[in-house]
């Protein structure tokens, strides 16, 4: 896969430079490090602040959700690499509006260790930090070991719901509760059809046969549950739906938010073909769709494939999801 870049080592800082130049009214950075992206108007005094962080290569995840109604800041790592604890601390300090900070991020070793260090450091400065880990990928561990699951596209629903709660003036406890409630009701599963290449690595993270797909692959190319012969869109969708529905167990009459997410190279046309089948399966079970998100929400650079996320919504989650948001990558009115 060919990339448009200059020096691989400059990939992330140049991307951030372009991003800050493209969205000067919305984004700024903390201190003197462009890896510490924050809302241009931060800190928002009196509001609970939300921070995330993680490796690059997943746009709009992570930094694309920094903006009104969603996140206040994001520590940005190199491609597929965690940012440092120091960067997370710099973001935390800059966005803290006096009402505490919630970290919401994916369950990855490097991120966990660094965010834990950052939270320790922040506590020395009397910033109250709470952590909510995203573990939505049903393919990464069985239900009995759900705590080991990795965090993928479902984090966007957590950003959205927690961000809305904070925007509405929720307390630190309430914002944490909103994030946790969203995640308790959220499951994701993905399928990859082609690999992606970390710019500095120069070769694909994995290889996959011309006629194969990987069911359950993670967004960094972590191997999934099974390598199989490529199936039709309807078969793939059924596979993902079955795995998610078996775990989430929605009942007839429930309402769901649906996200069909492209991993990078897969065009929106194919995502809508998937959505068509999702809608059919849900209709057959008497389950309604509160809102559908079809597009690229959490990617793996130029990987081909898609993930499917379902979130069961009650009135509270529905209202949080419907609340307006405005970031460089996500606008809802």
């Amino acid at each position: 896969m060919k990339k448009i870049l200059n020096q691989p080592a400059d990939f992330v800082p140049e991307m951030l430079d372009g991003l800050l130049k493209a969205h000067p009214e919305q984004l700024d950075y903390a201190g003197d490090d462009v890896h510490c992206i924050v809302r241009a108007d931060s800190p928002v005094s009196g509001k609970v602040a939300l921070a995330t962080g993680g490796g690059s290569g997943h746009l709009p995840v992570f930094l694309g959700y920094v903006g009104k109604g969603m996140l206040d800041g994001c520590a940005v790592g190199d491609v597929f690499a965690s940012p440092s604890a120091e960067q997370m601390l710099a973001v935390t300090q800059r966005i803290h509006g006096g009402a505490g900070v919630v970290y919401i991020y994916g369950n990855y070793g490097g991120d966990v260790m660094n965010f834990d260090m950052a939270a320790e450091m922040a506590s020395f400065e009397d910033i109250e930090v709470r952590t909510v880990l995203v573990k939505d990928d049903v393919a990464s561990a069985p239900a009995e070991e759900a705590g080991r699951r990795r965090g993928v596209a479902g984090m966007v629903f957590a950003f959205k719901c927690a961000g809305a709660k904070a925007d509405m003036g929720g307390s630190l406890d309430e914002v944490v509760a909103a994030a946790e409630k969203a995640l308790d009701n959220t499951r994701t599963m993905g399928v990859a059809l082609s690999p992606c290449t970390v710019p500095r690595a120069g070769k694909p993270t994995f290889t996959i046969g011309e006629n194969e797909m990987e069911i359950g692959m993670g967004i960094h190319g972590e191997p999934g549950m099974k390598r199989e012969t490529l199936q039709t869109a309807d078969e793939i969708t059924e596979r993902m739906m079955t795995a998610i529905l078996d775990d989430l167990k929605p009942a007839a009459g429930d309402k769901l938010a649906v996200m069909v997410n492209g991993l990078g190279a897969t065009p929106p046309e194919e995502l809508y073909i998937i959505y068509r089948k999702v809608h059919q399966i849900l209709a057959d079970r008497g389950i309604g769709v509160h809102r559908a998100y079809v597009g690229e929400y959490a990617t793996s650079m130029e990987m081909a494939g898609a993930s499917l996320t379902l979130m069961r919504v009650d009135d509270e989650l529905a209202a949080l999801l419907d609340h307006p948001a405005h970031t460089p990558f996500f606008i809802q009115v």
Partner: protein
Amino acid sequence: MAETIDSAQVVAATNRVGVTLVSSEAVLTDLDQQMGDGDLGITLSKIGLALQEFAAGTPVEGDIGKWLGKAGMAANRAGSSSFGTLLATALMRAGRAVPGKDALTGDDLSAMFAAADAGVQERGKAQPGDKTVIDALQPAAQAFAAAVEAGQSLAEAGAAALAAAKAGRDSVTPLRSKVGRAGWVGERTEGKVDPGCEAFVIMLASLLD
């Protein structure tokens, strides 16, 4: 036991490890692509460069402990993947074990090794047998301490540590990874070398050079 390591040797060893990490990028990338996300080579190459810069630019000023702590912070800034963060933690904890010292005895080194091991376990919350760097680090730390205890030379103790690290690495190769990214790969990790163990062996060998 009169044998000691002075600060110039610590600086030289840090620089040497830095050089080795840069030159090991490809092999570590390759291992991490097989059961992870392929960034280990890149992370450690960046940390390697940072350590070289740090070693060249930061005087020890009579406090090896503090110096190592700062090296750990520089490492975390440079690369903060799981292994990078654990390496930074190890450096910081090793440094904290020898505050104010300007030369290290065998016992100091044993204590540093043990502190690093404990720090890595605390930060990463993995258990021995989970198939992580701990399975190379812990036996190495124990072998080093035992050799020093038994009155062997630092070179002998180092060789014992390296042998133990390699044995530890190999002992978990047949196993299934239980934590981190490799934990999600499951049975497909069986028979494959843990990249973190390999990285540790490479660093330790370079330390002893």
